[in-house]
């Protein structure tokens, strides 16, 4: 899963979903929702990488995570141009290899721990989800969306069914965030994308993409 999905939050979440007996279609739907933010990362990188071959971009897309995006966009902005080798280094060297190495260590080491709850390891999942949430909050809308999702998830879990609590919170919470007054990000694409290899300054991509680097703590 760490190789072919390669999405930390979704993988952490899937562990909880599977152990709770959630049906696969619901897990897949939640995975899609949880990773929908990658649409924004991908769109933000598109202008920088538009002159790269489609095959390379397709491969790059698989390695696009919160961390690789945060490192890459900061690197591109600092250079004021795209740096493909920098992308590979960020995506593979600092994320893909360590993530999969840690996964293997976890698999091999798990059998040595007879009762994880005695060591407090059962709290890792909710604590990780809470910590990852902090990494994705960079403004009032995210805060309200997350707060509303908490309320809806708890209410749904207590009053309706625990198996749809997360789905309800994840779908309804963002509506509360959207209801806040204030302008929406007008456009995720810059007006004047910098072509590959040229030293053209790249305009800021706005709050939707620019804020996402906060997920750096997430893996």
């Amino acid at each position, binding site marked *: 899963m760490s190789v072919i999905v390669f999405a930390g939050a979704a993988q952490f979440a899937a562990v909880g979903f599977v152990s709770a007996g959630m049906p696969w279609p619901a897990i897949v739907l939640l995975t899609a929702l949880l990773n929908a933010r990658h649409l924004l990362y991908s769109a933000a990188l598109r202008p920088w990488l538009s002159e790269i071959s489609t095959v390379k971009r397709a491969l790059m897309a698989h390695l*696009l995570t919160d961390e690789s995006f945060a490192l890459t966009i900061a690197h591109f902005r600092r250079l004021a141009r795209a740096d493909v080798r920098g992308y590979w280094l960020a995506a593979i060297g600092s994320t893909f290899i360590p993530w999969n190495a840690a996964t293997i260590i976890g698999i091999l080491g798990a059998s040595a721990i007879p009762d994880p709850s005695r060591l407090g390891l059962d709290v890792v999942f909710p604590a990780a989800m809470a910590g990852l949430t902090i990494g994705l909050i960079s403004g009032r809308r995210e805060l309200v969306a997350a707060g509303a999702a908490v309320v809806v998830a708890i209410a749904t879990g207590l009053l309706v069914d625990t198996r749809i609590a997360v789905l309800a919170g994840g779908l309804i919470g963002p509506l509360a965030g959207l209801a806040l007054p204030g302008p929406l990000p007008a456009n995720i694409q810059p007006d004047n994308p910098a072509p590959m290899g040229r030293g053209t300054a790249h305009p800021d991509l706005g709050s939707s993409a620019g804020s996402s680097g906060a997920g750096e703590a997430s893996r």
Partner: protein
Amino acid sequence: MKTDLVGLAFLMFLATYPSRAIPLLSGQFERLSPRLLEYLRLVGPAVLAALAAKSTFVTDAQGPGAFHVGIEWLAVLACLLLVLWRRNLFVGLFAAVVLVAAARSAGLA
């Protein structure tokens, strides 16, 4: 080694890859409405927060669960505060685990 979740992993890949690849490959993504884009942006923190809340406050059940009170509250809160302060998830997780393990070994939880 159990392989019964390989199919799920593959389906999760199918649910993840398009969101990573479509804008990068097609360039048509910017045509979506700003409102929809903003909704998608908010889904991430909302789902994660819902996961954390449900796991902390509601017991697992087939149907409605029960309200759970336990040391996990303090552990998750400690993790939250540490991540806010240090911007480091590992530090927060370590503190949460140590807190719960210590409370359980002392018979407090």
